[in-house]
């Protein structure tokens, strides 16, 4: 691959556009500045060593990772189907898959509750036949998070699969590669940046999920009380704790976003140009 000089962006914005852009930067930056200013930093250690807080953080990470794993397992085949196979009703399926992304999360929670709750349309059979229930369990949290987060992965992957150059895949097939081999060694590496971006978005969305979780899974420490729920409750009884917890979540999300961006998107994007 010939090495290329990095193209430096040298465009100048017209002043009105620049001013609006700076206002946008301020709009995003000021809330965080306010949060950092109000956070009682001396209480950080006290809050972080609270066992309930550690439980909430651990639960959040555990459930969001599971939700991401489920989203990958089921979302990638769905994205593949939507991108490559023309079947009647494809538009409807695509709309359905992305509906939960634009839906207000609490509506998703209500929908899940009345479908998969103990007396839900489908949930009643799960409960009566197998004694299996989703609300009030950690499984329920994972289901709620997957429901709202999976569309991110499906959309990102579908876009990338459509846009990639298919001739590499065709060439591999003519050389005798099986379809599984082509997918693993040709397709996935080609859409890898989009895949990683989709995974990160999905994970972040699952981590921050609140409305569907509290409506469908309920709220109980250690089982279903994720960080966003803990912060919401702490706001009423102990605002200092809510501030510290918010900073913890921001720090965790920030660290992952920065780390992943440089390593995966920057590096492989450059390799592909």
């Amino acid at each position: 691959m010939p090495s290329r000089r990095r193209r430096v962006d040298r465009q100048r914005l017209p002043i009105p556009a620049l001013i609006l852009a700076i206002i946008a930067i301020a709009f995003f930056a000021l809330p965080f500045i306010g949060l950092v200013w109000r956070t009682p930093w001396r209480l950080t250690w006290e809050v972080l060593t609270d066992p309930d807080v550690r439980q909430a953080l651990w639960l959040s990470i555990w459930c969001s990772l599971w939700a991401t794993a489920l989203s990958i397992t089921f979302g990638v085949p769905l994205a593949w189907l939507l991108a490559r196979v023309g079947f009647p009703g494809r538009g409807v399926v695509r709309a359905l898959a992305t509906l939960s992304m634009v839906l207000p999360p609490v509506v998703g929670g209500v929908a899940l509750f009345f479908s998969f709750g103990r007396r839900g349309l489908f949930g009643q059979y799960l409960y009566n036949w197998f004694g299996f229930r989703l609300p009030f369990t950690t499984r329920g949290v994972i289901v709620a998070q997957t429901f709202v987060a999976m569309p991110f992965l499906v959309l990102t992957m579908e876009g990338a699969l459509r846009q990639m150059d298919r001739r590499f895949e065709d060439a591999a097939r003519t050389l005798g590669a099986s379809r599984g081999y082509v997918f693993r060694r040709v397709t996935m590496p080609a859409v890898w940046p989009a895949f990683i971006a989709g995974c990160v978005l999905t994970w972040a969305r699952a981590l921050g999920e609140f409305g569907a979780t509290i409506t469908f899974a309920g709220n109980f420490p250690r089982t279903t009380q994720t960080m966003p729920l803990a912060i919401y409750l702490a706001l009423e009884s102990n605002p200092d704790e809510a501030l510290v917890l918010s900073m913890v979540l921001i720090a965790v999300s920030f660290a992952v976003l920065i780390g992943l961006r440089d390593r995966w998107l920057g590096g492989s994007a450059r390799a592909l140009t």
Partner: protein
Amino acid sequence: MRRTPKLAIGAIALLGFIGASCGSDKDSAATTTTAKATTTSAKATTTSGAATTKPAGSTPAASGNITVFAAASLTESFNEIGTAFTTEHPDSKVTFSFDASSALVTQINQGAPADVFASADEANMTKLTDAGNNQGDPVVFATNKLEIIVAKGNPKGITSVADLAKSGVTFVTAAPEVPIGKYTQQVLDAAGVAVTPVSLEQNVKGIVTKVTTGEADAGIVYHTDVLAAGDQAEGVPIPDDINVIAKYPIVVTKESTNASTGTAFIDFVLSDQGQKILDAHGFSPPS
């Protein structure tokens, strides 16, 4: 050109920090002066908090809009009281916000625009008075008792507080800051029963919903909530010796923009008419 955006972001962040740190000094100075001012005004207006019941019609003409923040358990009764109040004072309009008393008092202390606050326990009212956000002293206008709520038909056959600990019974309560959550723990302690709930709801109506939709088998709510649930649920009484008497105080807030109408509303709640409506919904008199 690559340096300029980074410089711009850095400059904005720096200005923000400088502004914020200057602001924090001014803010803390400002809050100390307002705190001093509040204590003097609270002492001056104690007269408006008298607990006498006034007959309906003796209240002065009230006008304008008021916002009443009331505990979730007051939803049905206060909606009716609001309608009766506006019928008697046609120039007035009452808007309600019903939620857990703990959530409401946090909002008021953070500056939410409420004229009147009605709490389901005295602890949350104390949070308001400690912050100096009241005008006059709070007055208890009603009391309530706790009751076990179960699904229609009582499928799990719950007859006492002890039955809540039976295996296979899904019990729901509220977060401990919420009045009903605290009261429930008091009842369970008095009965010597240890139950692990499956969820901590945001307010008492959340408990009612979980039981009426069949997701939970039982919860402990107020007697008034069992009545309000109508035929969607049933109540199992709790013996008086372990039951809790919940006291509901009400007060006008310091930041109220229409304190006279707010006071008129409280007078109405304390009047015979208001008390009759509360009684019809299952509340008990304040004493």
